[in-house]
């Protein structure tokens, strides 16, 4: 369970613009610590965004996504006041879901 995500969803004439900032260390598994040991990989592998029960974006990530991942996209059919759910799962099976309201 990581820290809460920051989600901003705004209704625009051509769709809902979604910006998500997740809090995750996104460890590549290639870095060594001060003792020279490999730091095990720890990264978000799957992200799904749903709007009123319908999936509007899915993402599969590798360890090459930058620390504290940022994601931006746009979808049609959302209205002001609707709820948007963002879920991520990392390679250790940890998961977090956050909800935001479109405004």
């Amino acid at each position, binding site marked *: 369970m990581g820290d809460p995500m920051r989600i901003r969803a705004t209704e625009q004439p051509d*769709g809902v613009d979604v910006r998500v900032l997740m809090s995750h260390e*996104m460890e*590549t598994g*290639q*870095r*060594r610590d001060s003792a020279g040991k490999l730091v*095990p*990989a720890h990264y978000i592998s799957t992200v799904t965004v749903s709007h009123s029960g*319908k*999936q*509007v*974006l*899915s*993402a*599969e*990530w*590798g*360890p*090459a*996504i*930058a*620390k504290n*991942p*940022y*994601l*931006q*996209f*746009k*979808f*049609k*059919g959302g209205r002001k006041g609707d709820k948007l759910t963002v879920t991520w799962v990392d*390679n250790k*099976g940890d998961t977090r879901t956050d909800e935001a309201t479109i405004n």
Partner: protein
Amino acid sequence: MRKHRRDFIKLSGVYAAMAAAGLLSVEEAFAQQARNKAFEAKSLDETVKLLGGTTAVQSGEISITAPDIAENGAVVPIGVTSKIPNTQNIYILVDKNLNSLSAGFGIPPGTEPNVATRVKMAQTSNVHAVVKADNKFYVATKEVKVTLGGCGG
């Protein structure tokens, strides 16, 4: 190597559990593992093959928004816009990273084929945006110069 195997088994378990819970169908769970393989590919051609294509055709309909010079390879903003109709998936690949594939996005109907995220880059490299539309693969490429690498260090 052992570590890898254990992670793989653990992940397989997660997908199996998801399949059992009805979150994923069995076929989807298998497709998921094939996609995970794609994340281990070392080149553009290999990645496209593992994603189920043969070759990717160069396309002017895809645009990549990325800096020409990235000062910090640990955080390189990359945006991809596809004007190809029926875009199903968008993939971001960094040629000279240890594993090329950085991210894959599934674009359901109603969502614009336009995504942006931030990736890590080990060194100056070509960035490929691969788009899957109507089960065909298209690609566009842009070079991003990196002054400070983002892997290791």
